[in-house]
């Protein structure tokens, strides 16, 4: 996403909203104060985020309002309307949706007759065999337990 943010340059704004830790552990625990949350948000810089980082409230007010998924992405068009949303951030999808949003903006400004239509798709994300859990050993153990539970259920 960082490369894409650079490539789109002045054409679009890119924001990162820092929300609750999805896989808290001993290295990055769950938030118990806004000051701590803001501190961990600044640590996102060490993990490669160069975009503006916004810090949600401790209680996750904006996160809840936008649907509560841990790594969702939204594109808001130049008029303030939602043009794309996905429950996971996948660069390929964002690239295509953002290009389309910009193309529509250009067409509208040229007086083009643009008819919106609606579509839904479901994507599947292939998870790496060995994921890195930056929260620490505990975060990894939490995931391992759920995977074992799923395997026992035959999911």
């Amino acid at each position: 996403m960082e490369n894409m943010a650079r490539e789109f340059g002045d054409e679009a704004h890119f924001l990162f909203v820092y929300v609750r830790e999805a896989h808290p552990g001993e290295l990055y625990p769950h938030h118990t104060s806004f000051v701590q949350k803001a501190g961990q948000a600044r640590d996102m810089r060490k993990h490669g985020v160069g975009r503006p980082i916004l810090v949600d409230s401790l209680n996750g007010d904006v996160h809840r309002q936008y649907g509560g998924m841990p790594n969702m992405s939204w594109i808001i068009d130049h008029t303030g309307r939602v043009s794309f949303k996905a429950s996971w951030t996948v660069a390929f999808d964002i690239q295509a949706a953002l290009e389309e949003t910009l193309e529509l903006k250009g067409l509208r400004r040229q007086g083009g007759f643009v008819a919106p239509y609606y579509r839904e798709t479901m994507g599947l994300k292939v998870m790496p065999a060995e994921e890195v859990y930056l929260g620490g050993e505990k975060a990894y153990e939490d995931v391992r337990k759920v995977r074992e539970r799923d395997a026992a259920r035959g999911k």
Partner: protein
Amino acid sequence: MAKDANIETPFLGKPYNYDTWDRSGALPFFQAEAARVGDVAPDFTLPLAEGEQIALSALRGKPVMIEFGSIT
């Protein structure tokens, strides 16, 4: 800090800031109340990690791509 007073407000029946991930808080896709494609995006104002505030509505005129996430 006033914002800290909301810490106990649950989300989908469990604490918003849980200390153990067990997927019980995972949603099918989005909470039903969330905006739909075509809706005006709910406005918000949040502080940047480094300080000043940004309002979504102040960014109109260009598309805004918003990624939500955390370190873990």
